[in-house]
């Protein structure tokens, strides 16, 4: 366990740790009693920059998203697209630049933002329904959780443990857990990356339907250009730590593959591939622990 982990753990009881900006949490508490307006939030990020030590991850990124818009961010792995999402989620603080939601500082809207992670991150010791109800308060918590669960088609699994669900089902529970808070900005961090192709197509339909129904603003980070074109109103490409392409997808929904679809997909893909993969990406050599050795005898 490295020093940083220990530090984070040590801070676990004090409310705001290093990776959530202090003002974000206090502001959330201050505005909590306000009735949240429904619908999507307008997102505006200006001049975002982030570096980890000497390594630059994002440099002067501007991104504006209209209320209720569905934007997909694509890019090679390590291009900084996940970091951008983590900055918007408030999981990390930007070094430079600022983020506003509906013109206010991002921190004032912490409760309006929900994130779906690549791994579902369900609490294994809570049953499915209690996972969905995580962080909810009020007298009708159970009903709201049930309602969200039925929207993702899993109301019959409410009493199950997450351990017995399939990967796709877990992500649907995670989606329900995010939606039950009626977020105005939903951040999706490669949530379908670990699923098989058929389950992904199913999930595309589900996410699109729920997005149309709830009207939240959605930001999807993915490395799959087809997925981006299938779901998003706009596809944004990040390369060399900055936005290099911002392509509208003017196709009717629900989208099916066809000439227009393929043309857009092809254009984005060509742009991604036009730059050869970085040769000397600083990958950390993984040390294999003794328990993972296999003797070839």
């Amino acid at each position: 366990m490295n020093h940083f982990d220990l530090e984070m753990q040590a801070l676990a009881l004090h409310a705001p740790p290093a990776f959530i900006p202090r003002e974000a949490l206090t502001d959330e508490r201050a505005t909590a009693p306000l009735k949240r307006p429904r619908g999507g939030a307008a997102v505006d990020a200006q001049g975002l920059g982030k570096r980890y030590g000497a390594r630059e991850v994002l440099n002067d990124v501007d991104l504006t998203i209209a209320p209720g818009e569905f934007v997909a961010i694509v890019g090679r792995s390590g291009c900084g697209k996940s970091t951008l999402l983590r900055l918007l989620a408030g999981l990390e603080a930007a070094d430079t630049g600022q983020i506003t939601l509906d013109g206010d500082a991002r921190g004032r809207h912490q409760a309006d933002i929900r994130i779906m992670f690549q791994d579902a991150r369900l609490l294994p010791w809570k049953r499915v329904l209690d996972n969905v109800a995580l962080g909810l308060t009020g007298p009708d918590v159970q009903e709201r959780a049930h309602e969200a669960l039925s929207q993702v088609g899993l109301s019959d699994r409410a009493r199950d443990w997450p351990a017995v669900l399939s990967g796709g089902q877990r992500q649907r529970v995670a989606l329900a857990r995010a939606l039950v808070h009626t977020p105005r900005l939903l951040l999706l961090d490669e949530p379908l990356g670990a699923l098989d192709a058929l389950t992904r197509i199913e999930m595309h339909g589900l996410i699109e339907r729920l997005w149309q129904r709830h009207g939240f603003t959605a930001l999807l980070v993915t490395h799959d250009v087809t997925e981006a074109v299938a779901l998003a109103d706009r596809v944004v490409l990040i390369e060399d730590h900055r936005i290099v392409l911002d392509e509208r997808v003017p196709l009717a929904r629900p989208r099916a593959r066809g000439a227009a679809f393929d043309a857009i997909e092809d254009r984005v893909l060509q742009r991604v591939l036009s730059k050869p993969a970085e040769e000397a990406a600083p990958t950390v050599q993984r040390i294999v622990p003794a328990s993972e050795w296999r003797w070839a005898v």
Partner: protein
Amino acid sequence: MPRTSTSPSSAAFDRWLLGAHVQRVLPWLFPIVVIAAWQLASQAGWLSTRVLPEPWAVLKAFWSLTLSGEIAKHVAVSTWRALVGFGIGGGLGLLLGLLTGTFRAAETLLDSTLQMIRNIPALALIPLVILWFGIDEWAKLFLVALGVFFPIYLNTFHGIRSVDKGLIEMARSYGLSGWKLYTQVILPGSVASILVGVRFSLGLMWVLLIVAETISAQAGIGYMTMNAREFLQTDVVLVGILLYALLGKLADVLAKGLERWWLRWHPGYQPDARS
């Protein structure tokens, strides 16, 4: 190893061996054979009663001690000592483990001291303990408490530290913090590790109690066996040893039960829940 025999009768025997009822009985087969051999050896006069009394004599001693109420009295005294010592030592271990696991300042302040004390065998402290507490109840409780403290402390500390960081991050972004985050994420995430410490401690608890009770006592299973030794009553000595074995097993069964209940969400504790 290559199978040499594939005859139908041997296959049927294999199937029978794997049957549910047989599987339940099979673990008892070996002890039963050993006891039967022991009984025969005693009856034939190969084993002196001074060395080992016959099993039947042990049973008779057990029965007469039960009727006289002596067993109940000694077991009650020993169990009380074990539980109180476990409560004090385990409770402190849990408390300090939670403290050092959660707060970095507490770890800096306490952990290296505790690690130093941990390396002293509890039994090496017996002379000091007798000087401090004399030979009365507190000396025994102190030894038991000291012994059970460390497994629970270490595993609690480790459990808290190894809670999935991703889950903590997720819970924070869903608005959990402070006490809620602690009770809903951090504590449940470390229960598995804490229970490992509890089971380890339960084993140590009896070992330390046996030693403590044989030093000096006016009651308890250890006293009963030491007393019987004075009068060369090997059967009573064996009854005492058997009682320790039974109580140890009982404590382990209880700990397993706790595991099954608290970790029922864990795939390893779900017998046939598959979807």
